[in-house]
């Protein structure tokens, strides 16, 4: 039962080996196709045998994902994939366990479990498809929909403040937090690979377009003309530079972030040098808050820190107990405490 390294006798798997025989049923043009394609593309590079990979999901368009991967897969119930994945990983720590979830599945009905899998640092990789809408139920408000948004369930505009998934994950002290965009395929592959390699919980938000119920939700970040000015790609231990001509940067002013133009007395050395391995999550949180129109949206890895995982600590406690007390003896356990014997003649001793 214990998985081993990929058997050398088998030919190296290809992208096609990770595609199941099921017909993909998302709407044509849905951003989910890109996420599936990038996932199938990176899988052969991870060096993990197919049989040791499990994709777990809740309910939603995004949660159909496991059916399309030729690995083990469990399409469960709405919001609970994180809890089910926790059980799988704890029971069978050798498996590579992935959770595919949506903004509603992961942050509305499953918000509680999301918080707890992140803070526990269970070694599970979570990919949250953020289309800022409920796709499968045909277009209601989601917890990431913007204030004022008109949807089927908010005909005169949403009166709710949205949650920012990356801020949520950082606040829960997830040990790996990243953001990618469905249309930035090479970048997404990089981010997914980094998540896979991280030991501990990994949370990846993917900005995904639902072309049926919330088309264009992320267009302002996708337009070829302006996207270099609207995105800043986080590069660890490098100054935060962005812009079409790489002529702008982000710097700290007190404890506020601001955009600075390079040249005219400002050089790269004045900019914020971002370090994703910093255990103090304050700066990561500050960056994640950015949504101002004049400020670029950070993508890439916000946080990648080392901490013991829940599943590893659990296994360790068991190993230590067994080393100390020996493997449990049922006989000793049952025949313990204060006992007495009734003899055949009925007397007790």
């Amino acid at each position, binding site marked *: *039962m214990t998985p081993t390294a990929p058997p050398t006798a088998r030919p190296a798997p290809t992208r096609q080996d990770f595609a199941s025989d099921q017909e993909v049923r998302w709407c044509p043009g849905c951003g989910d196709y890109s996420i599936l394609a990038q996932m199938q593309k990176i899988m052969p590079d991870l060096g993990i045998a197919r049989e040791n990979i499990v994709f777990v999901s809740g309910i939603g368009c995004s949660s159909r994902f496991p059916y399309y991967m030729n690995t083990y897969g469990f399409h469960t119930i709405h919001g609970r994939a994180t809890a089910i994945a926790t059980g799988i990983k704890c029971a069978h720590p050798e498996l590579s366990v992935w959770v595919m979830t949506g903004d509603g599945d992961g942050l509305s009905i499953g918000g509680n479990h999301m918080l707890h899998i992140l803070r526990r640092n269970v070694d599970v990789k979570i990919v949250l498809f953020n289309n800022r809408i409920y796709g499968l139920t045909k277009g209601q408000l989601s917890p990431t929909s913007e204030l004022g948004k008109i949807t089927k369930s908010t005909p005169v505009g949403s009166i709710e403040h949205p949650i920012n998934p990356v801020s949520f994950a950082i606040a829960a002290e997830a040990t790996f937090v990243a953001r990618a965009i469905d249309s930035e395929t090479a970048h997404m592959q990089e981010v997914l690979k980094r998540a896979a390699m991280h030991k501990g919980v990994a949370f990846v938000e993917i900005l995904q377009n639902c072309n049926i119920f919330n088309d264009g939700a992320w267009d302002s970040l996708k337009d070829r003309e302006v996207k270099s000015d609207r995105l800043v790609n986080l590069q660890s231990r490098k100054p935060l530079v962005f812009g079409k001509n790489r002529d702008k940067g982000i710097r700290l002013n007190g404890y506020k972030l601001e955009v600075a133009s390079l040249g005219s007395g400002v050089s790269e050395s004045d900019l914020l040098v971002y370090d994703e391995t910093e255990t103090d999550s304050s700066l990561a949180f500050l960056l994640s808050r950015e949504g101002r129109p004049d400020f670029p949206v950070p993508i890439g890895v916000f946080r990648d820190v080392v901490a013991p995982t829940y599943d590893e600590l659990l296994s360790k406690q068991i190993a230590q107990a067994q080393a100390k007390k020996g493997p449990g003896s049922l006989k000793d356990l049952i025949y313990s405490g204060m006992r007495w014997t009734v003899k055949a003649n009925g007397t007790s001793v």
Partner: protein
Amino acid sequence: MATKSQAANNNKPVEIVDRVTIRFAGDSGDGIQISGNQFTMATAFAGNDLGTMPDYPAEIRAPAGSLPGVSNFQISFSESDIHTPGDAPDVLVAMNPAALKVNLRDLGPGGTIIVNSDSFATANLKKAGYEANPLEDGSLEAYRLIPIAITQLNAKALEESPLSKKERDRCKNFYALGVIYWLYDRPLQTTLDFIAEKFAKSPETVAANQTALKSGYNFADTTEIFTSHFRVRQAQLPPGEYRNITGSESLVLGLVAASQLAETPLFYGSYPITPASEMLHELAYLKNFGVRTFQAEDEIAAVCATIGASYAGSLAVTGTSGPGAALKSEAVGLAVMAELPLVVVNVQRAGPSTGMPTKTEQADLLQAAVGRNGECPVVVLAPATPADCFSMAIEACRLAVKYMTPVYLMTDGYLANGSEPWRLPDLASLKKIPVSHAADAKSFEPYQRDPKTLARPWVVPGAPGLEYRIGGLEKAEVTGDVSYDPVNHERMVHLRAEKIRRVAQDIPPTEVFGETSGQLLLVSWGSTFGAVHSAVERVRAKGKKVSSVHLRHISPFPADLGQILKSFETVLVPELNLGQLRLLLRGEYGLPVVGLNKVQGRPFTIGEVQQKIEELI
């Protein structure tokens, strides 16, 4: 040695009695549960059969001396085989006025009341709502009242102890216990040993508590209050090694045993809730048995993580009580659909909603049997006694794995906290639980069923070539692919129902106590076994004809049950709800069934059941 001096002092006549029921009552802070447990151990060692029932407030530290703060412990012991902690106590030991007030109504006529008279001062009387001192106003004339100045006597006995006054005063529950030990001729040794172990860090505390116990004993021996004492002869229990055990403890041992019999590691996911938390506490200690416990963020996560563990090949169990069981229902439906083994233990308590958390009830039966969306059949089992929780935990795991299905194991607060002597099983006699994981990729189909049990294969991720996808969407027969085909759905609904029905082939023939046909049959389930069985015994002892059947398997019912029911003119179902088993029996067999129903957060007394039987015959 205490036992010697004890023998030397025994100079008052001994009366032989066959059964005694004592209730200890006092403030939750008075050490009532400890006194009760100690008396239980001493009684077990004296060779009596026994049954116990603790009853304590939900508040952790209710105000001292107040009515809600009263904590009780009842024990019944006998020279013959008994099945309950007794109906009305013969003796009430009340450590304060509140304890007297709360428990008096349960005391049988002419019952004995032993009180700590020192605690009947104005302030305590007021807290208990007494206008006059009941020890003095004649209101207790119908009883045998024995006031003892326990606080003062205890203080005097401990005059030489170096402990503070407050610490010495805390020993008084052992003083009182010593009196009762003399009165019922119990050996002191188990309790002396207990004190030595419990307070090992402080020799002064050991000495003071041991002195209090012995002084109480000697006081009773010498005082003129007691002219004789009582002895209950050893019970004729089947030979073997015994220990006294609560339902929570034996259930945990059963789960660990099942894990070993199945050679499959145990995963236990749970969220704390009274009265189910003890199982989580106990299992968390058993890490060297490879037990993985997971305290989840709520009951939904607890059952979901448990389903995940089952999917990944563990023997997966989640435990809770009613409100938590309600939260788990959607996920249990997933396990029904995915056909994964899962055991859900529901230690029922009085509901609905938060209800009365520390009180017992059997009102979650329908929730377990049918309380899910869709046609969602599961196996439902219920242990009969605290010790029976061991066997039924193994049975639940065995059926879950064999039929690839969720199994509900319905206990309750009374079973979980109550105790009885348990004849320790011969481990070699426990049957292995065969577990096999599909491994052959060529012949593998996720929903290919075993022709006999209709179970699908259990596949554990990690098996090369068997990668498959499942979920809560309807499955195509055999392949397990997602299917919306109307005919397929209907067939799958029937297959899942039939699979549960086939569990009946694993249920042993139903034992009928008494004649197999006649005028009246009682049908009981779960923790009411003791009261119902005893009541039937009593009526039969009078030469009247009445029979009973106790169900451990409720879904499905045993195959022979219908025939048995039809052989009686009247079927009576006593249960601690408004008639849930009755409804299921009527639905299944279309027979008229009479109910005896009680919902007071308390078990049946034998007398209540007996009275109903006598009304009907």
